[in-house]
């Protein structure tokens, strides 16, 4: 069966997830449409095969959580922790995303067409995030690896305690967090932003983005270790 529809108004969530973990992995459906999500939590979590899932409406917490290889589209908005800890594949939110979008994602691409809430990309570990709108405060907090492209504005403390993740912002940044700094855009940066925008299907001039990365001054204790007087 190529296509299959699950209606969460009549079918339990557990049935959908179990189907996606087992039958979809066995190739029993390539494309699954989920109707009437009505903000249910944990839709399409822990997917482990290249299935395409379309959630028609709004999703609650952790939609597409821990995704691997699958492509999950949410036509409405997503709650907290959408695509949290994603390993690979793609999660696309056509509306807005709440807090902690893409938290600790190790890989894959998260696209949010609208705005994202607080702590977008927190603890990012190698995934890529493209936000068509703006992001809330403390986004990319302790982000370790990967890239974030923000087409709108950023709130307070962007990139606080950054490790090696790199952030690109087109709009204004209310404030940078501890250890984050602006750096010049290189040709490589422009190419990376252009590629991510292209994958996200968003039309912006890559040269209009600013690069933010870690000062690396928090990598080691800043005390005068072992000093002798």
């Amino acid at each position, binding site marked *: 069966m190529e296509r299959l529809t699950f209606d969460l108004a009549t079918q339990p969530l557990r049935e959908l*997830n179990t189907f996606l*973990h087992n039958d979809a992995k066995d190739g029993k459906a390539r494309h699954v449409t989920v109707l009437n999500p009505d903000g249910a939590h944990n839709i399409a979590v822990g997917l482990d095969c290249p299935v395409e899932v379309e959630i028609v409406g709004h999703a609650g917490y952790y939609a597409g959580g821990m995704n691997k290889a699958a492509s999950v589209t949410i036509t409405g908005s997503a709650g907290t922790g959408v695509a*949290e*800890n994603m390993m690979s594949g793609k999660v696309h939110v056509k509306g807005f995303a709440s807090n902690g979008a893409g938290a600790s994602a*190790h890989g894959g691409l998260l696209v949010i067409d609208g705005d994202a809430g607080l702590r977008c990309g927190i603890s990012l570990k190698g995934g890529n995030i493209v936000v068509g709108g703006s992001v809330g405060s403390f986004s990319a907090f302790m982000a370790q*690896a990967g890239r974030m492209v923000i087409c709108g504005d950023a709130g307070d403390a962007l990139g606080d305690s950054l*490790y090696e993740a790199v952030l690109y912002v087109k709009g204004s940044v209310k404030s940078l967090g501890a250890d984050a700094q602006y750096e010049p855009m290189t040709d490589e940066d422009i190419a990376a932003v252009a590629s991510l925008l292209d994958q996200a299907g968003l039309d912006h001039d890559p040269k209009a983005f600013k690069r933010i990365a870690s000062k690396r001054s928090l990598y080691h*204790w800043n005390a005068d270790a072992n000093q*002798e007087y």
Partner: protein
Amino acid sequence: METKPVQFKNLSREESYGYDRKTLDYIRNAAAHGLYEIRGMGAKRKLPNFDDLVFLGASMSRYPLEGYREKCLTKTVLGTRFAKKPIELDIPITIAGMSFGALSANVKESLGLAATEMGTSTTTGDGGMTPEERRSSKILVYQCLPSRYGFNPDDVRKADAIEVVIGQGAKPGGGGMLLGQKVNPRVAKMRTLPEGVDQRSACRHPDWTGPDDLAIKIQELREITDWEKPIYVKVGATRTFNDVKLAVHAGADVVVVDGMQGGTAATQTCFIEHIGIPTLAAVRQAVNALEDLDMKGKVQLIVSGGIRTGADVAKALAMGADAVAIGQGVLVALGCNGETYFQNGAHHDAIADYNALGTSPGFCHHCHTGKCPVGVTTQDATLEQRLTPAVGAKHLKNYLKTLNMELTTIARACGKQNVHHLEPEDLVALTIEAAAMAGVPLAGTSWIPGQGF
């Protein structure tokens, strides 16, 4: 030559209680370095603990079991509330969560080998699951920590249970810490960090903030694993009564309560000594919370933090724990703080290496340096060879076996055919403090301080 009158000799050398040599040393150290002290292990201060309790063995009013002949069951089942596949252990003594990074890969393998032989579980730590520990452990509990270092769905699916770590007894409210010298290439890769950084983990989970969120997070983990695996929630002991209730509310199958004697591989000393409550007090509060919710026996309780002996295990069980978890005792069994290490069939003196760290066997808490003289808490290619998995596993198996023998001996003496039948009524306290914290009478009285006369 000037001499003072003989009667001033002692007074002129009177040490201040408030500013004793330890405190002076602390202040001078702070003044020299401008940085708090970081060390390993748990609280060193004297605390009310399980030694302050004794068992009322059977006599005229109770009937004991024959110590060597009669059966005394130790089987322990964890995760019966929601999980399709609860954890079944042969003994109620488990290995606490300790990270690869803090411990060497050899040590993690030793833990797995010994635990598997004894029919009990091991636990991963901050830094992910290593293939060595998965291979060697029949039952492996996979921790989900705030840092999410190395956390991935494949290992979630490989795990036998999942433990959501809210806090740790050594540092409730604090995140993990691993100093640069232990962040070698393999550790750095597993944690997605640059090599050699002084790694400080987050203290809050990135994708949930309170108990209502945690309920959804736990549901996510259940959905990912098709409701098969038990979900544990681990809390550092502070407001234990409320925290355990909230963990149960959030949907935990098992609650792990770690008291302030619990160890760490690296944390600020001020945390280790000054934050959290003793294990003895935490067990009572945790059991009260479960009873209050009528969840005793439905949600299992694992207690950790300063469990060293079979008597400690028996007392924790009598107070209402279903199992215990051991960290530091396990490391000591592997050789921690020992004078020698065993390599190539012979014992080798390690004292010079302790001295190089400014310490001696018996006092060492230098896990944070990664220079463990006996090869336990290290990532150094030479030092880690000082403990081989087979030798470590043999010692650890002996230790666990001894604890289990002590536990069953005590249970039989109290007339119990099953160690889980030990009960608070079997215990009395030797100090008023312990009586108040444990909620058992002061020996020879019926007085439980705080519960009236």
